[in-house]
């Protein structure tokens, strides 16, 4: 039997069993059972993806499942990348969930062990495996909607906690469905132009479709898939919804679900439509650069740990889109090797981002679990109480900061390499836009370091700022195991990224960049291990640290002893004197004042006796999402005004409503008559 088919079958069976267990099993064993079965689902999905990457191809048509069309499934190496990434994230998050959901009732609400969450969890996990395996428009749309709805319900599952959760749910529901609508229109338009709805048929018919239709389809699917991938300016739902979901679900959304936006774009744009025009990809490149800079800028001033991570997702998906856009530009300019390199960089970054973002979100979940807060200003000092979590979070932060020794370094390196070679591509727009993209990557790399030093330094190091942080404790073993799995993946990518080189070569070939270009690029990618040797640099640095440590111990006199901190002679220091996350980010916020437009409010209350004696000073600061503020508020306002204005049309008279119906039929008939 085809190993991909076997993997998918095991995944489906495990998913069905998990749903059954969630419904039928007693509360005592429910979480463990669902967690283990969903972990099996993830592992099977990962294995199926791995088999696809190893060269096995799988196609199937199940005509009984969906009416009219049936379900088409196909897994090639490109799907394999997203299948294995999604499966791996599901595996780590499910193991983690066994501990998290059992114990998440820390603030008086019913925990995650209720039936609803436990049913949704495997459904969402299964949809993440199903989307990349879909091979027809209707199958993709059904899987896509399954993913959207199950994740939406997971986001609002803690709706009793705060109004923020409800608002996040509304934002997510509206934006994900608008995205679905644009994808639906785009793909249906494409399918009707191609006169078939299977991907294989569309890919064969695509060269004959007029460029106008293809351009229109591309813009529509870019809006839909880009919004799922958190592309600015369609990212507004992401920093709201991801932080409010239960942490393992945040990990699934931020590390696996957003990737499928990229998958959709690559599948439709590069594979089905076969590249198209250069402006498509320049648009993707530009929007990707914008997302990268804007996302990390917001992350570097965010105080909420999970919001910071969500904005970092916007940044990283922006970087991936830069790679995809560059691949498209290179392909259309006739440089297949470069295109393959750029796409491979994007796919590698998808993998590494999934690894470190899973780790970071699970770490943030452990912090939330231990302290009940996500506000970095209220944390601090977790290192003493949660040493393992701190260490693992540090590994993830190193990856997100894209520094050597971190998972993100090899992929960002490869991305820069592919852009550096873009000099050969002719055309003024390319010459202008490529340096802009490189500048965006560079700026986001610098700001990412600041953002993650802030997250780690003010959240985990230093002294505890609140009693909640002071009484933190390590999470249960299952949660640590989930984080450990993600950490293993991070370490693997950081030290031996070359291992995935040949796999990426196959994935790139499957994305429509076939031929000599892909072969040559695959050769280069398998040499990745030797061209980029993080093992040597990182290993050498680590060895030196150990050597220096031993040396210092030999040179120094006597053991280390404690000494008081320098307090300027003004008495003992208190945690209130520490730098908080807000104060840490203040210089950056000031530098980017014009972009971020922060709102601060200073309220001074004087004593009634004298205006010069201050009783109380209240200071508040917020950095609203400016894109959201400027772009969405007017649109929402306009829709609301239109709604109010159209109320005059509905005055309650039945005659008038019948008149409307009659008029519509007449107009429709006239239009049809004119069109004949």
């Amino acid at each position, binding site marked *: 039997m085809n190993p991909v088919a076997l993997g998918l079958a095991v995944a489906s069976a495990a998913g069905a069993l998990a749903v059954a267990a969630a419904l039928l099993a007693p509360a005592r064993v429910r979480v463990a059972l669902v967690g283990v079965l969903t972990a099996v689902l993830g592992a099977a999905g990962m294995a199926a993806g791995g088999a696809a990457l190893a060269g096995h191809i799988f196609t199937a048509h199940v005509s009984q499942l969906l009416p009219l069309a049936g379900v088409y499934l196909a897994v090639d190496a490109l799907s394999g990348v997203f299948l294995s990434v999604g499966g791996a994230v599901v595996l780590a998050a499910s193991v983690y969930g066994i501990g998290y959901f059992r114990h998440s009732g820390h603030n008086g609400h019913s925990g995650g062990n209720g039936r609803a969450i436990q049913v949704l969890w495997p459904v969402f996990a299964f949809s993440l495996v199903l989307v990349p395996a879909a091979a027809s428009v209707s199958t993709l749309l059904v899987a896509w909607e399954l993913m959207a709805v199950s994740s939406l319900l997971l986001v609002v599952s803690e709706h009793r906690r705060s109004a923020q959760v409800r608002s996040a749910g509304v934002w997510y529901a509206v934006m994900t469905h608008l995205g679905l609508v644009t994808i639906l229109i785009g793909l249906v338009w494409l399918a009707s132009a191609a006169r078939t709805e299977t991907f294989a048929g569309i890919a064969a018919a695509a060269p004959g479709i007029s460029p106008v239709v293809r351009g229109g389809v591309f813009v529509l699917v870019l809006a839909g898939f880009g919004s799922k991938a958190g592309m600015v300016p369609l990212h507004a739902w992401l920093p709201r919804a991801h932080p409010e979901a239960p942490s393992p679900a945040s990990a699934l959304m931020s590390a696996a679900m957003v990737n499928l936006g990229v998958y959709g774009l690559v599948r439709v744009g590069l594979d089905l439509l076969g590249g198209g025009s250069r402006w498509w990809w320049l648009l993707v490149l530009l929007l990707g650069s914008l997302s990268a800079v804007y996302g990390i800028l917001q992350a*570097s001033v965010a105080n909420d740990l999970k919001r910071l991570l969500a904005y970092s997702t916007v940044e990283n998906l922006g970087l991936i889109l830069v790679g995809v856009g560059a691949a498209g530009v290179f392909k259309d300019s006739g440089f297949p090797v470069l295109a393959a390199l750029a796409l491979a960089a994007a796919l590698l970054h998808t993998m590494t981002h999934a690894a470190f973002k899973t780790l970071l979100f699970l770490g943030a979940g452990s912090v939330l679990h231990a302290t009940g807060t996500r506000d970095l200003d209220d944390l601090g000092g977790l290192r003493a109480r949660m040493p393992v979590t701190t260490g693992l979070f540090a590994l993830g932060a190193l990856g997100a900061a894209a520094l050597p020794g971190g998972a993100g370094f090899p992929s960002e390196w490869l991305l820069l390499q592919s852009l550096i070679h873009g000099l050969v591509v002719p055309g003024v727009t390319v010459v202008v836009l490529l340096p802009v993209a490189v500048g965006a990557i560079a700026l986001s790399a*610098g700001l990412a370091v600041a953002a993650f030093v802030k997250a780690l330094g003010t959240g985990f190091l230093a002294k505890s700022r609140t009693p909640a942080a002071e009484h933190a404790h390590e999470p249960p073993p299952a949660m640590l195991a989930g984080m450990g799995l993600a950490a293993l993946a991070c370490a693997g990518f950081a030290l031996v990224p070359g291992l995935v080189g040949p796999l990426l070569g196959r994935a790139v070939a499957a994305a429509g960049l076939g031929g000599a270009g892909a072969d040559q690029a695959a050769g280069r990618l398998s040499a990745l291990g030797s061209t980029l040797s993080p093992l040597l640099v990182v290993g050498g640095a680590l060895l030196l640290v150990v050597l220096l440590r031993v040396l210092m111990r030999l040179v120094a006199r006597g053991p280390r002893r404690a*000494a008081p901190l320098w307090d300027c002679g003004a008495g003992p220091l208190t945690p209130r004197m520490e730098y908080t996350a807000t104060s840490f980010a203040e210089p950056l916020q000031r530098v980017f004042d014009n972009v971020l437009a922060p709102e601060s409010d200073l309220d001074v209350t004087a004593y009634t006796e004298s205006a010069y004696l201050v009783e109380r000073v209240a200071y508040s600061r917020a950095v609203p999402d400016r894109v959201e503020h400027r772009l969405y508020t007017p649109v929402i306002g306009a829709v609301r005004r239109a709604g109010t204005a159209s109320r005059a049309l509905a005055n309650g008279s039945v005659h008038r409503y019948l008149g409307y119906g009659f008029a519509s039929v007449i107009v429709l008939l006239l239009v049809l008559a004119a069109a004949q």
Partner: protein
Amino acid sequence: MTTSSVVISALQVTLVLAGAPLLTGLMRQVRARLEGRAGGGVLQPWRDVRKLLRKARLDPEGTGPAFRTAPLIGVAAAIMAAAAIPLAATGTALGSGADLIAVIGLLTLASAMLALAGLDTATAFGGMGASREMTITALAEPTILMAVFALSTRIGSTDLPAIVTAGITDGARLASPASLLAAVALAVVVLAETGRLPVDNPATHLELTMVHEAMVLEYSGPDLALVELGASMRLAVLLGLWASLFAPWGIATTAGAAAVVLGAGVFAAKLALLGAALAAGEVFTAKLRLFRVPELLAGSFLLAVLAVTASFFLN
């Protein structure tokens, strides 16, 4: 990794390790003489290191592993950079690990660790220094990457030996607009990354203006010796990198002993010259206000972008 490449890297590391404090001493001495003081002599930083190494190791209360490891990582990163960058000869031991982006990443990692150590002390000084240092790093790193990009596009590689070799064999390349713009941009960033005037004042002891010194305020004894050593090595490595990229003459392209020794001598001379010039310049420079620094860095970023654009257009 051949024997000769290991020898070259070892030589470079030894040179930087032994010479970096001397470079700092030389710069202080030049400055002292120009300001009409006697100065402590070129050997003073080494005497300081010796003095500090003899002191007891103290752990400020409440600090953890980040605080203790940061000085070690600082020195280790500088050593790795010294081993990788073609300072005296192009055939360094790390081979293709001698990647410009990787080297810059390592040095950034060291400053990020030091910022974490500053935050770990939970004092206002530590946090202040860390916050400022990270702001400067966040704005300086893009410039470095852009300058790297400008230098790499024509060679088609970020491999340092390849870039330096191209500079040696084709001298005209160094006088191209892209290269000149990148040189200015990188010079500004080297000043910022090593905490020199006008970005940070290495001699200041006024808390509110400090960046680097505030961050490392809690270090004492052997740890402080490592921090100081790491900082001066960082200066030597970054100045050496700048010299190798924009004035590569004298760097040995073969592994012959005479060429390598000559290369090492030229490298030492270049560093001394650059250091003396920098120190002389600092006498006439005032420190910028902290919130004017981003303007300076934005200016250098712009130059780097122009360098990239020039390298695209003028090809």
